[in-house]
């Protein structure tokens, strides 16, 4: 079926529309149209399809989950949806022992990413920007973790952290009874263990962003500061870094998004057990699978949405204001 249509369409495409076609005559009588009918159809498709998909997959679903957050529903038949008002949120804030730790962990996730891998990525970018030898090799090496999917990273790192056979415990001799270091299970350790893995990836990401930013810094600025007698640190601190402002904004937004959407790494690592609860994992645990607490899970998703909006809206407002000014 599909092969037939593809063999027919090329003909239709290559033969110009005959002048006698009703659409073109009407266009010729009225004002001259810049677009042929085929153009308009194509345009309608190209704009329409993404719009339909976007509305259906983003807006409708987001609104549906906001509505569902005020109901209880086990996912079986639409008539079993019951309106419960704010009950889900009340339970979430007062009874769920995992909710506040999850919020806290999302915040820690953001703080850790912005404090460690981001400056480190900037450091690497500055070093690589000096045209040292093998710069490309280093760039590739540091950027590789970003190319690997989060799920794979989680899988690899949980092998490294495995209490019995993992690399770390084997090297430090902590895989004997009484000496175990439970990197994956111990709630005091596991979040940091995961964050090491997340930082490992985030550093490369930040490095590339800053490297791109540094390439756009006007070399004459550096020259000027060097002529004025500024040393390397001074010229970075007072000349280069201020010009990286747009990059810093992007980095901030990217890191916030990374912290809010953190999910796959942890899910593969230990399914968000005690110590590594995250909002996204709570949503999944409540909605996916047999548990099907769809109303309750949606309430958690709404909390996540509100947090995201609280972060993103000020950013967008600031950006648009800047655009209008310029």
């Amino acid at each position: 079926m599909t092969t037939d249509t593809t063999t027919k369409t090329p003909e239709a495409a290559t033969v110009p529309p005959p002048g006698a076609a009703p659409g073109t005559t009407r266009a010729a009588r009225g004002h001259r149209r810049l677009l042929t009918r085929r153009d308009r159809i194509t345009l309608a498709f190209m704009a329409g399809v993404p719009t339909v998909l976007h509305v259906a997959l983003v807006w409708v679903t987001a609104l549906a989950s906001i509505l569902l957050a005020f109901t209880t529903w086990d996912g079986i038949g639409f008539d079993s949806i019951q309106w419960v008002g704010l009950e889900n949120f009340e339970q979430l804030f007062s009874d769920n022992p995992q909710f506040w730790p999850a919020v806290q962990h999302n915040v820690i996730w953001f703080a850790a990413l912005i404090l460690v891998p981001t400056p480190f990525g900037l450091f690497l970018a500055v070093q690589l920007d000096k045209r040292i030898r093998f710069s490309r090799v280093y760039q590739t090496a540091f950027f590789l973790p970003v190319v690997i999917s989060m799920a794979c990273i989680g899988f690899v790192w949980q092998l490294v952290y495995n209490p019995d056979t993992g690399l770390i415990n084997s090297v430090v001799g902590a895989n004997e009874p009484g000496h175990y270091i439970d990197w994956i299970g111990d709630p005091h350790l596991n979040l940091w263990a995961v964050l090491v893995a997340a930082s490992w990836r985030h550093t490369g990401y930040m490095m590339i962003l800053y490297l791109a930013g540094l390439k756009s810094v006007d070399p004459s600025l550096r020259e000027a500061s060097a002529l004025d007698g500024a040393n390397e640190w001074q010229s970075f601190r007072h000349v280069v870094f201020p010009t990286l402002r747009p990059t810093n904004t992007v980095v901030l937004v990217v890191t916030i998004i990374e912290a809010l959407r953190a999910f796959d790494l942890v899910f593969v690592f230990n399914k968000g057990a005690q110590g590594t609860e995250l909002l996204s994992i709570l949503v999944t645990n409540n909605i996916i699978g047999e548990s099907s607490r769809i109303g309750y899970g949606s309430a958690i998703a709404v909390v996540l949405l509100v947090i995201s909006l609280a972060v993103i809206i000020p950013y967008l407002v600031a950006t648009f204001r800047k655009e209008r000014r310029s």
Partner: protein
Amino acid sequence: MRLSPSGLSLPGPSRRSLLSGAGGAALLAGAGIPLLSACGGSGSAADPKTVTLGSNASDAVPKKAFAEIYATFRKRSGITVDVNTKDHNTFQEQINSYLQGTPDDVFNWFAGYRMQFFAAKKLATPIDDVWAKIEGNFPEAMKKLSKGEDGKYYFVPLYTYPWALFYRRSVFQQHGYEVPTTWDELVALCKRMKKDGLVPIAFGDKDAWPAMGTFDQINFRLNGYDFHVELMGGKASWTDAKVKSVFDHWSELLPYHQDGAMGRTWQDAAQTLVAKKAGMYLLGSFVGQQFTDKADLDDLDFFAFPEINPAHGQDTVEAPTDGFMVSKAPKNHAGVVKLLEYLGTPEAEAVYLKADSSVVAASSKADTSSYTALQKKAYTMISGAKSLTQFMDRDSRPDFTSTVMQPALQKFIQNPKGVDGLLSSIERQKKTIFASS
């Protein structure tokens, strides 16, 4: 690249038409999403010679074993079983939407609350007609497991397996250990094992469900089967002193469990038993799958969890049972009845067990002559039980066990001292979950 009949290649589509084609395809795919759920088994609609079956047996061994059953059934009745196998976990996670869409006629499922849930939601067909024929094949405990809350039959059990304390005979011989029959003996044995440099009880709770098995054992030994049912059904309170006592007993045993359990999978924990580093391991008999060496497997043995409360002795066995259910509107009802009648016979079970020796037949009439020593013991244990439980997550609401109990038990294992706060938190959450629908 398509060739025209004459052999010449047709001109390739222009970029624009290709784009609009791709857009159209995307649109079609978008519109097709709700239809995808209809893919499962609606193809062979009213063919009287075919029964469709949704299977979760995605592992090689059970998949082959089931295939053999269906081949034998086809030979005897002329009805083909059209199997639609899905990954085990995926099957479980999609079961709600699967059963609401256009499910296969028959599907693999578990006995107990998880079966009754779908029966109560009218997503399954009662099969009293089938049971009229196969009733004589099953012991009383299995009949109880196959009924919905309305007293009708909804389930045909195929096989079952016990949870118990597994150990290696050679290790017990070497150190002169004896199988404990009371709680005090068990604790004493753990102490001895620890002194002898063994891990008394292997343990891995990364998957979050093994801890439920330990809770179940202590709970029904201490408080009996009826309390287990009440507690799992949401009727008894988690703040009850009886529950507290379960955790007190568990705390006593916890120091003898393997360290670092939260980061360890059950497979890794089983390996410590294989390697003779651990003395015992509380798990289902599927632990045998980890014993790949024949000599090691022959060395594996088990005993029932020791008695704690003399009023209940060892009368309850945790024996999760797998079998079949019929979806809400099977297309070939007559064929389904025939298939289930066959699946309820000892012969069908024998065919299955020939391929998978880690489980035992659910029927009391099954031929036990080909059983391994381990299977024979499991069979005696299950058939001698006064009551059978399924497992915490099969006897209770899955939303409760997965979102409340799994994290709660993991928390207990990390910090056995905070039981009181933990139990009141469980009770609060339980009330809201069991109150909804």
